């Protein structure tokens, strides 16, 4: 059993598919931006939170200087030419132990995050999967053995009931040699333990609509935003 030391939130990307002109993590759902909600989800579980920034970083700096002064912003100057695994490597560079990695464009309930963290302390690497619902899913194939679920593959083409949730728990140096998609890095280590988590990834306007509706429907009775 190994507790989780830190969280790295990747918020450097352009978010070009949503085209809203601000970092996706600053999009609001029910009056609270995604970043605030993610920070609320993780801050009870970790000692440090690193948010990797790039595209329009000044907006996230301004926001965190007012609302989240406890986080550390990590600047990814090469955000236009690098992918999320590079941001994860940068964000976890001087951390140690086990790290919770999350994309900054996710919406989930605090209870879902807590369940994932609980499951993650028992294995070196835990991959988050969620029921397929986003506009641009990365499908996961899984096997179930001895009461546990393991991810055996990722694919854009082979549709399945679950997609990659863009949440994982792994050592701080897990992405140190990576530069591509996060799931490509994970592919080299398969099979890996999986944990199903109810969340919404927001890549498109349609994702945002579904996330808002789903969030209200599924989580409003569990928590107050």
């Amino acid at each position, binding site marked *: 059993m190994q507790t989780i030391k830190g969280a790295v939130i990747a918020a450097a990307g352009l978010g070009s598919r949503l085209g809203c002109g601000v970092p996706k993590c600053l999009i609001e759902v029910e009056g609270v931006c995604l970043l605030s909600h993610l920070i609320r989800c993780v801050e009870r579980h970790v000692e440090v939170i690193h948010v990797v920034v790039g595209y329009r970083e000044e907006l996230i*700096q301004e926001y965190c200087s007012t609302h989240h*002064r406890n986080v550390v912003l990590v600047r990814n100057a090469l955000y236009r030419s690098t992918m999320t695994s590079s941001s994860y490597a940068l964000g976890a560079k001087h951390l140690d132990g086990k790290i919770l990695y999350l994309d900054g464009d996710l919406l989930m309930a605090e209870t879902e995050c807590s369940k994932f963290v609980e499951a993650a302390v028992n294995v070196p690497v835990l991959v988050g999967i969620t029921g397929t619902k986003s506009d641009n899913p990365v499908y996961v194939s899984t096997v179930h053995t001895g009461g546990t679920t393991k991810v055996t593959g990722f694919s854009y083409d082979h549709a399945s009931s679950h997609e990659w949730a863009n949440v994982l728990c792994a050592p701080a140096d897990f992405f140190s040699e990576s530069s591509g998609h996060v799931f490509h890095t994970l592919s080299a280590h398969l099979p890996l333990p999986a944990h199903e988590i109810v969340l919404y990834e927001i890549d498109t306007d349609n994702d945002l609509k579904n996330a808002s509706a789903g969030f209200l429907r599924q989580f409003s009775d569990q928590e107050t935003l």
Partner: protein
Amino acid sequence: MRTAFCFDLDGTITATELLPCIASHLGISSEMATLTRATMEGTISFEESLRLRCLILGMVPAEVVHGIVASVPLNGDIVQFIGARASDCFVVTGNLDVWIGPLVNSLRATLYSSEGTFSEGRLVLNSILDKATAIDDLRTRCGYSRIIAVGDGANDVPMLRNADVAIAFGGVHKPSNAALEESDYVTYCQQALCKLLKGL
């Protein structure tokens, strides 16, 4: 690998800017605040600003300045961090040794600063620190192979640019855009800063 930790003084170690405090002694706080803001934003160079400030504040006796500086609140976590590894900690400030020397001595850190002397009751500015030279000195003369620098203003840029790890600190006020541009990390509270520093 030997690591040196370099800290700006005003608004980083101190929880407020020092020179406005001295200015308030003369009843010219708002005028000095304007000058400080223009300097932080890089509108006028640090050298020009320091010469002006010395001209204005130079009439205040050194012992009065020391009393004012001693009463300024400090960022306790940063002071504690420095105290735990004082031999590898350096205060790198454009401020004047004759004003802030006693404060830095109390921190037990080594000082790189601008230099002045009092002559017949008037302050004479002898040299203005280019913070890049402090970093060079730590590498070449002191043998440090890794420099970590923390600052917030336009005059911190040469220090941040030449450091191996550069941190913009916004604990007291928003870091200048120039300082942000040179930084690897941005922090807004001293607790988060010190956790980061301990992990580096």
